[in-house]
């Protein structure tokens, strides 16, 4: 390690120029031709020598030259200019912006700005116009479709729920695949602290929800491993580099201070409401009955039935509703859609930016209030941000940002439902409501027992928890206070050598509450209250030495060496209480039993995790004649989660970029091909496991059992079932990426293509073990996974005439995943979902292929029907679905004329399967327009019956409509729950108008902009039954590695409204 450090240092020191004795000194000032302000950091050097300097903060420089020498002025984003040194002692220069090359500047690793053409890897940039003033407050969801290779899926459309971000596919089976968030150079925790499984109840937000999109200056997504080497192992899944307005230098110094005020108002509706049929009510086989299912007689056949609340089997429940005994009830269709609301979303942002050449600052405050379409779902967020940077007199530059966020999120509980209510330990607001029988007056019938406060609903056993009771009596809430920020001090030794020290902190306290009153039907019927407080602290420091020098006329050098420390501490405290003594009181003192365990997950509520990471990294970039760029990076990580000997890993990256338009003289100055660049790169990274996986443990249960007649429960010890692995090593990832970047036709068309292949070796696998070994699981390094893909981005200005502009831009991506290797004795490893219906890692298949039950086939491949005419369901599982899309694409178009802009963003996904319990249950219960046909007819399933051993004959048995839909499509083999999720979506549409400056020049306003916009206004999933309206943007397994499932926990939202932005 020491040797590597010395080597890199030597390279840096070797570039120190020795001064030659020259004849005289020339000085001057370099200014920006547009603004007239001095430009700092401009490289001024004498052509043909190694003599050079850099302009200071005011744009002044001083250099020793001999007469007749040529001075070259070079700066990022500006046109390189040459000046002959004459007799004058002062040479001033007004530098013009580099419009012909449109030298785009992007922020790369550790906050370094580079020209895009010098990069050997793909970077996607999302500008602030695409993310501010939007209907969504979640930065993750705003990035959906905006950058190729970035796959964003929400858990569901509830305001405040979690969001998955997967960049370039899944490369780890049991580790995290979510990217690293870096805000103003400092890591930011974007995880979701999910406490229970998706089966029992999962509503937690992803913590990047604490970021205010209206305070974001730009988002750069580093996708490949070559780009993220400097970030260490946590950057292996891509890095989302966010520069906030507070953290960016104010480049536009035209006005001294600018205040902007934005106010938005949107409506939030449910987008995926099914099309209910209005002809049939509850029952089975066309007979009426107050059941789950909706296969009763048609409304024309029957008008009146006994009141469902007049027949409770529990006489105590009945005694609360004497008025319904013997009463009549109208058997007709009711408007149950009114259960969902139209929420109002309001965002108010005030921003102030100002400064001078020496110092600038930025402050911002946003209040975001998002009411969901589900009753009692609300997200309120206050964000306050302040940042500034100052150029101090003695070559120091100080920059700092400080942010505070307060997030307050509440929702009724959400858990998985398999079509007959929830199956886990907790209740779910969506568990039953979508298949409420058409004749049940959800909004009109009482939902609460007036005597006990408990839930009451239409089945005689009162065994469905009334959704309206859940709204009023159960909730899952998170209140978060978060402070994050950084301070950095840069010292410029010389104009080409500087050192930066940056310290960043990210601390949040998350108060979680899970509560249900007693008297429910799902979950703990005696009432439950679980409160936990989690505190997460990240303390990150960086020390970086940078050198930036032109070695001579042809070669330029850019080098850095850095040392990084990062400490993550997660602590959690909590209590769970059961047996509520006083109805309606959600405090622990009103409950009888207290426990230190989460009864849903059997996990402890008190937890402590400490993780330390040390990293030493370096980067050397050499450019040759401004057209060939070679980049070498390396990093060594040390972690405390693995035993000594395995806890250090070194990885590297190398890339080469060639700007052919500068190199090939035939292309220089061509009007058709303005820019053509080829790039190729290799990068590697690692994945250190979480802490505490290497050693065995012992379990203790202090209140295991209370023997009869005893007052004190007995305790037990248990040898833990997880076998520790002291030889555990980190995963290793390698990636090769090639790409082309090109611009045509006077820069009106730009396109970028990337191809990559990314492999993970020594996969960290949570393997199941044969329990006869004494243990049921172990984490091991075994296996290989590979993702290969293609990303294409384009931007075309098709029309630009007399103030009218028409632009089309978008991206296209496809990826293929494959599990290359698994341990020999492993047929398949399930890592998400259920063990008999979940995502599997199987050799030769995409990672995450779905296995479930199917209909057995005869030797000719025909489905086998059993003796009563229904399809058999297998008892073993096989591959039934592939959640990966064939390809996805986003196409946006914008038309603008004078101050008016109209734009649309369309998203399309081809292929990809979704196991949808919403679709299968809606069909199985006979609720939607898809089952609105004459139900007295009979059906014959296509298939064969086994009439004798091995002899199959065509099936001729007739079955009822109820059998076909309930027994087979709804609740039969899992293969009927698989649907192809090809879909088209109008993700965004907006119309905006900016008042012309002529009108505003007499007013105190700098600009006024009015916008009308809509989000998710229309979508169509072509292969789903028409009436089910399933929105494939859903992940029923929550935030994690699962994909392709939805368990009646994923309705989506549609938002539309307007906003106004005024600047002073």
């Amino acid at each position: 390690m020491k040797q590597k450090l010395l080597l890199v240092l030597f390279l840096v020191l070797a570039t120190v120029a020795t001064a030659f004795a020259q004849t005289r000194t020339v000085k001057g000032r370099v200014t920006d031709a547009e603004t007239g302000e001095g430009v700092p950091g401009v490289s001024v050097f004498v052509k043909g020598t190694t003599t050079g300097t850099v302009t200071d903060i005011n744009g002044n420089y001083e250099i020793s030259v001999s007469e007749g020498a040529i001075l070259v002025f070079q700066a990022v984003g500006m046109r390189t200019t040459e000046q002959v040194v004459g007799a004058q002692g002062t040479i001033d220069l007004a530098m013009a912006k580099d419009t012909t090359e449109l030298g785009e500047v992007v922020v790369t690793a550790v906050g370094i700005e580079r020209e895009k053409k010098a990069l050997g890897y793909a970077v996607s940039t999302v500008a602030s116009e695409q993310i501010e003033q939007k209907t969504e407050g979640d930065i993750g969801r705003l990035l959906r479709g905006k950058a190729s290779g970035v796959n964003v899926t929400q858990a569901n459309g509830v305001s405040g729920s979690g969001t998955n971000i997967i960049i370039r596919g899944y490369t780890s089976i049991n580790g995290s695949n979510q990217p690293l968030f870096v805000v103003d150079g400092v890591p930011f925790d974007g995880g979701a602290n999910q406490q229970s499984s998706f089966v029992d109840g999962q509503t937690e937000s992803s913590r990047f929800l604490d970021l205010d999109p209206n305070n974001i200056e730009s988002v750069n997504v580093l996708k490949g491993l070559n780009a993220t080497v400097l970030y260490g192992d946590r950057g292996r899944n891509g890095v989302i580099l966010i520069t906030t307005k507070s953290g960016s230098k104010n480049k536009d110094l035209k006005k001294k201070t600018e205040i902007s005020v934005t106010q938005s108002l949107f409506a939030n509706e449910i987008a995926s409401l099914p099309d209910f049929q209005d002809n049939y009510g509850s029952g089975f086989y066309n007979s009426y009955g107050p059941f789950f299912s909706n296969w009763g007689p048609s409304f024309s056949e029957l008008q009146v039935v006994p009141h469902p609340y007049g027949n409770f089997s529990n006489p105590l429940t009945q005694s609360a509703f004497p008025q319904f005994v013997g009463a009549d009830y109208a058997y007709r269709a009711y408007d149950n859609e009114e259960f969902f609301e139209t929420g109002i979303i309001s965002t108010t942002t005030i921003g102030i930016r100002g400064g001078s050449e020496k110092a600038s600052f930025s402050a911002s405050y946003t209040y975001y209030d998002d009411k969901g379409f589900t009753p009692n779902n609300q997200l309120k967020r206050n964000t306050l941000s302040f940042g500034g940077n100052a150029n101090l007199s003695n070559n120091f530059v100080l920059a700092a940002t400080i942010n505070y966020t307060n997030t307050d999120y509440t929702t009724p509980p959400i858990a998985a439902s398999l079509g007959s209510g929830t199956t886990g330990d907790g209740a779910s607001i969506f568990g039953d409501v979508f298949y409420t029988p058409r004749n049940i007056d959800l909004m009109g019938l009482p939902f609460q027992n007036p005597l006990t406060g408990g839930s009451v609903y239409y089945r005689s056993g009162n065994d469905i928890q009334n959704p309206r009771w859940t709204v009023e009596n159960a909730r899952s809430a998170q209140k978060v206070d978060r402070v994050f920020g950084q301070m950095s001090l840069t010292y410029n030794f010389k104009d080409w050598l500087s050192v930066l020290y940056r310290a960043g902190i990210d601390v949040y306290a998350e108060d979680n509450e899970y509560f249900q009153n007693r008297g429910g039907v799902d979950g703990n019927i005696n009432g439950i209250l679980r409160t936990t407080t989690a505190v997460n602290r990240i303390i990150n420091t960086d020390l970086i030495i940078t050198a930036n020098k032109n070695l001579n006329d042809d070669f330029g050098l850019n080098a850095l060496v850095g040392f990084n420390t990062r400490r993550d501490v997660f602590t959690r405290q909590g209590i769970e209480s059961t047996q509520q003594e006083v109805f309606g009181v959600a405090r622990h003192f009103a409950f009888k039993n207290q426990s230190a365990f989460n009864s849903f997950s059997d996990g402890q509520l008190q937890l402590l995790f400490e993780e330390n990471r040390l990293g030493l990294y370096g980067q050397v970039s050499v450019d040759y004649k401004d057209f060939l760029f070679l980049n070498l990076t390396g990093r060594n990580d040390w972690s405390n989660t693995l035993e000594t000997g395995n806890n250090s890993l070194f990885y590297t990256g190398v890339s080469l970029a060639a700007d052919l338009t500068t190199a090939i003289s035939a292309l220089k100055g061509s009007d058709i091909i303005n820019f053509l660049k080829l790039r190729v790169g290799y990068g590697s990274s690692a994945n250190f496991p979480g802490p505490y996986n290497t050693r065995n443990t012992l379990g203790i249960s202090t209140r295991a059992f209370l023997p009869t007649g005893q007052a004190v429960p007995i305790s037990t010890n248990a040898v833990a079932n997880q076998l520790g692995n002291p030889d555990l090593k980190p995963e290793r990832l390698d990636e090769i990426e090639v790409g082309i970047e090109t611009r045509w036709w006077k820069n009106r068309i730009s396109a970028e293509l990337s191809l990559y292949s990314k492999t993970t070796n020594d996969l960290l696998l949570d393997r199941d073990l044969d329990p006869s070994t004494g243990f049921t699981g172990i984490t091991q390094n075994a296996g290989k996974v590979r993702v290969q893909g293609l990303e294409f981005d384009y931007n075309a200005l098709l029309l630009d005439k007399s103030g009218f502009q028409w632009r089309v831009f978008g991206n296209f991506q496809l990826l293929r995943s494959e599990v290359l290797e698994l341990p020999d004795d492993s047929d398949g490893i399930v890592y998400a979902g259920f063990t008999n219906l979940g995502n599997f890692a199987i050799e030769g298949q995409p990672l995450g292929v779905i296995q479930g039950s199917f209909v057995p086939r005869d030797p000719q491949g025909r489905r086998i029907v059993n003796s009563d005419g229904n399809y058999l369901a297998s008892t073993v599982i096989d591959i039934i679905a592939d959640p990966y899309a064939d390809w996805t694409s986003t196409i946006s178009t914008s038309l603008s004329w004078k101050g008016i802009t109209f734009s649309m963003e369309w998203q399309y996904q081809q292929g990809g399967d979704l196991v949808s319990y919403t679709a299968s249950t809606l069909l199985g219960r006979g609720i939607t327009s898809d089952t609105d046909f004459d139900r007295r007819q009979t059906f014959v399933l296509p298939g064969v019956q086994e009439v004798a051993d091995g002899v199959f004959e065509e099936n001729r048995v007739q079955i009822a409509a109820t059998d076909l839909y309930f027994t087979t499509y709804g609740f039969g083999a899992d293969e009927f729950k698989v649907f192809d999720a090809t879909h088209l979506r109008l993700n965004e549409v907006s119309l905006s108008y900016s008042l012309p400056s002529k009108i505003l020049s007499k007013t105190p306003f700098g600009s006024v902009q009015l916008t009308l916009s809509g989000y998710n206004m229309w979508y169509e999933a072509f292969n789903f039954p028409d009436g089910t309206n399933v929105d494939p943007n859903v992940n029923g397994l929550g935030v994690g590695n699962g994909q392709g499932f939805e368990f009646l926990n994923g309705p989506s939202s549609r938002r539309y409204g307007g906003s106004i932005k005024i600047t002073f």
Partner: protein
Amino acid sequence: MKSIFNKLFALFLVFATSCEVLDTDVQDTPNALRPDQFDVNLLLNNVQLSTVTFFQGMTDEGMEVTRMIHMFGPLYQNAYFPENFDANWSTAYATVLADIRTLIPQAEDLGAWRHTAVARILESYVLVGLVDYFGDVPYTEAIQGSDNFNPRADSGADVYNAALGLLNQALAELDRSTSLTSTDLFLGERAYWPTRPNGAAWPIASSCVSSYSAAWWMPMPETAW
């Protein structure tokens, strides 16, 4: 140059906001106990409770097949899945037998013969239950952790014999005086444990062993290991 670098590094250490971050040694988890912190009393409690879980789990299928309780299906082809017995297999080996293997050496050291006797009796009970249902099951190669990830099955007759041996050993230990009293969830009083082998009282008759045949068992669907 070197002095500047040294000064920088010193400055860096001064500013480093947390020196704990420089520690890259692995720590034991604060969220669980270490394997050497066990108490034989508590382990024996778990063995007893888990044997009950094993009994309840295994006898469900037996009762369904003999129609003492309802067998859900609705067809014979759909009644049972390969993973039906997963939890019971896991309780038997990973819980009961693993805990017994851990507690017996320590109990012998302490002279806690009551503990070892109860543990051996329950081990033999679980082994007999496993053989009754599955026929040939792992025993001699079982509970070896990372030393053997795929224990081979021993013949059922051998396992029955081993269970008998355990019972005899347990009897001898019940006669010895013990240094530790244990919590006995089954019988509560020493007096109820048999002190002499009584042929009729033992659940395994020697005739079972001699007439053992693997052909007694119908082929079970392959388990998922």
